[in-house]
């Protein structure tokens, strides 16, 4: 895994307070706005977000660069394929 400090996002998406499926739907919509290779940072509080975004990444082929959980918040970095 990359060190989270060195990943620079091109776009930030805050999904705090949203539950399934909105956090994944918003993630997908935000990724559509990015170009290939660009990075989206997502902050989510949905407790099911990490397994869901992992599945989303496998299904869509977009790369999950890093993910971390801290104080009930989840932070992930996704790279557009």
């Amino acid at each position, binding site marked *: 895994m990359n060190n989270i400090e060195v990943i620079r996002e091109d776009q930030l998406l805050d999904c705090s*307070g*949203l*539950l*399934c*499926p*909105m956090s*994944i*739907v918003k*993630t*997908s*919509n935000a990724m559509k706005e990015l170009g290939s290779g660009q990075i989206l940072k997502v902050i989510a509080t949905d407790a099911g977000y990490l397994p*869901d975004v992992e*599945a*989303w990444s496998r*299904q*869509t082929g977009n790369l999950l660069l890093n993910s971390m959980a801290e104080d009930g918040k989840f932070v992930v970095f996704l790279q557009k394929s």
Partner: protein
Amino acid sequence: MSKSDPNAPKRLALIASKGTLDWAYPPFILASAAGAMGWEVGVFFTFYGLTLLKPKLTASVSPLGNPAMPMKMPFGPEEFQNINWNMPNLLMANVPGFESVATNLMKQTFKNKGVATIEELRDMCVEMDVRLIGCQMTMDVFGFKKQDFIPQAEIGGAATFLEYAADADVQLFI
């Protein structure tokens, strides 16, 4: 409509057969999540599920038919919100307006927790080009016309769904 291209995206085929507030959620949640994953999605609305295609959604929920439903209050301190109120059937069946109270409580609880409304989820599905297909036979039975539904709704029969589902990777009856 058949999926002949091996590189085509995955496909989800759903049947939505129930129109109450609680059962309206699963098809729209799964359809929008699949759409977000780039899947092709079709939902076939039949029997009471047809009401979910009406422009104005009036889905309600009755705790009477759902004995395991937790009855909780969406306001007050957390300890109060966690109390499961045991409602006798006699009360649920005979007190006028009980169903609308239960419906409003469920809607408020969902809102407090950050769950999208059925309308929002359906709008998402429409934006993601989810195919929403009304069952012609049950439309005839219950007296629905195509113009009673949102303009994005298509009309089809069992063969339409089966052909679509035959090429689907996931098929669910809800």
